[in-house]
């Protein structure tokens, strides 16, 4: 009894510590976003606004453009996630189930590009995008983000597929499925947690990215949210209140996305295992 209680207490106190550490900057940001300008900086810091206001949010929305940035970011992030999962799971399946020349080389090759600092890649990348006519387009950013979030997806899913006994698909193939159908019907559902984790990674990667978007996008109508956020960092001043409000707006959709996929993170195997 006592031991169980101690175990519970341990879990909750650890959870509380993690909670405080990860939530604190966001809470600080959110609280600040409800303060009027003159309360944002005070000689003695104040946690809560004395006068709650939505003025910062109104300012952000009045500036206009945010709806469009939001749409752009959402489209790009969703397509990056879909493309990323599609491409990565095909590759991971090949790597998990087949032995072929160049297998190890491929696994290392996709890691190589991660090892270079972006500064030296950015000019050649810009030139490629320009030649392909992909500046100022969704497609350009989707391709770039998919490529740069690929390694994790491939490695993660490869590990996942390997942990699933091949007897599972073989059984399906005996039942008359083709290999691809067996993969799609048997392997993919069982790997839901891995796919969910990879998709969160791809989604946030695309949602958050600044450097590529800054370099490849010139049109106001094609800007993404991280670029839009820059509107409040001026040459001579920083508009603190709007930065905070815009950041809160920026963060929320990802949480919604997470809530949508988080069930998959934990229930995939249980179902699969029962089926298997």
């Amino acid at each position, binding site marked *: 009894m006592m031991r169980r209680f101690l175990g519970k207490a341990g879990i909750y106190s650890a959870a509380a510590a993690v909670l405080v550490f*990860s939530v604190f900057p966001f809470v600080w940001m959110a609280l600040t976003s409800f303060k009027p300008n003159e309360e944002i900086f005070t000689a003695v810091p104040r946690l809560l606004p004395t006068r709650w206001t939505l003025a910062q949010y109104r300012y952000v929305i009045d500036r206009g453009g945010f709806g469009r940035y939001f749409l752009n970011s959402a489209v790009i992030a969703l397509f990056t996630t879909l493309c990323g999962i599609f491409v990565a799971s095909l590759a991971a399946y090949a790597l998990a189930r087949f032995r072929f020349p160049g297998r190890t080389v491929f696994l290392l*090759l996709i890691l190589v*590009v991660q090892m270079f600092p*972006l500064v030296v890649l950015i000019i050649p990348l810009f030139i490629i995008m320009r030649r392909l006519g992909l500046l100022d387009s969704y497609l350009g950013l989707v391709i770039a983000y998919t490529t740069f979030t690929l390694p994790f997806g491939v490695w993660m899913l490869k590990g996942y597929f390997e942990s699933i006994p091949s007897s599972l698909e073989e059984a399906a193939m005996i039942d008359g499925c083709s290999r691809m159908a067996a993969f799609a019907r048997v392997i993919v559902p069982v790997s839901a947690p891995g796919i969910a984790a990879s998709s969160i*990674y791809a989604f946030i990667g695309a949602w958050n990215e600044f450097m590529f978007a800054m370099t490849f996008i010139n049109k106001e109508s094609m800007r993404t949210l991280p670029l839009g956020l820059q509107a409040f960092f001026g040459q001579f001043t920083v508009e603190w209140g709007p930065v905070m409000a815009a950041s809160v707006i920026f963060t929320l959709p990802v949480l919604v996305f997470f809530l949508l996929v988080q069930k998959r993170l934990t229930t995939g195997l249980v179902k699969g295992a029962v089926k298997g």
Partner: protein
Amino acid sequence: MVALRVALKRYGFPYALLLPALLGVGILTLYPLLNTFWLSFHRYNLLRLGQAPVFTGLENYRRIFSDEFFWFVLRNTGLFAGGCVLATMALGVGVGCLLNVPFRGRTILGVAVLLPWVIPKVAAGIVWKWIYDDQYGILNFILTKLGFDFQGFSWFSSAPIAFLAVGVVVVGQSFPFIALSILAGLQAISPEIMEAAAGDGAGPWQRFTLVTLPMLKGLLLILTILSTVWDFKVFDQIFIMTEGGPAQSTYVMGIYAWMTAFGEMQMGRAAAIAMVMFAILAVITLIYLRIARSGEGLE
């Protein structure tokens, strides 16, 4: 040629599956990587845009290796990245395991853990800088309230403390990714194995080290590689919070490469720095792989 045709016939299916991935990697990364390699043997100043790069052999490398500052920055980077990777992995694995335990409020914790990862980097850097502010920062205020004398304490005037302050931010932004992946990985371990281990009398710690860790080996390998790579290249957080200061004492390779490329405009030398960074990371990765392979390995 014949060999190729045989290989294609025999391995056509897996190659076809790899094709989409190779296409992206091929189009986007091949040219920039080769370009970087080629430039690293040239003198190419962006200020002289009209002039073609001049071949200088190993001059860029010689200049980097003979620069005392480079070795200082490399040491900084090694220590900082090493510390960050250790802390990130430890925290990430811990939180991942925690999230795997069913308890009330688990979803809330899952969402909360995600927050530091989601907040846009520039905004996060600026908010953190403000939290750390010597005069008006909430951190000094809280610490002083708790009875420590942190009034006016400066988090950014000496390198070790500045690294610590930035490290907290870097780890805070990268552990959620590790935690979530570990959580997903843990799901692949069937409860039966755990129950069997428990039946054999293994305690929680033994179950963790003898069952969980070996099963997660492949995942831990890639997560460690990626964390190492990212933390070794860290740029944004330091650029925003310390700008490498005071007196260049918090320079890391990411800043050094940026300053050479877009500060001094020496693209050739920046490419050489990138090649050096790549070589170091490649060696570290191969060492990781070797360690992992000592058990069962990449295959």
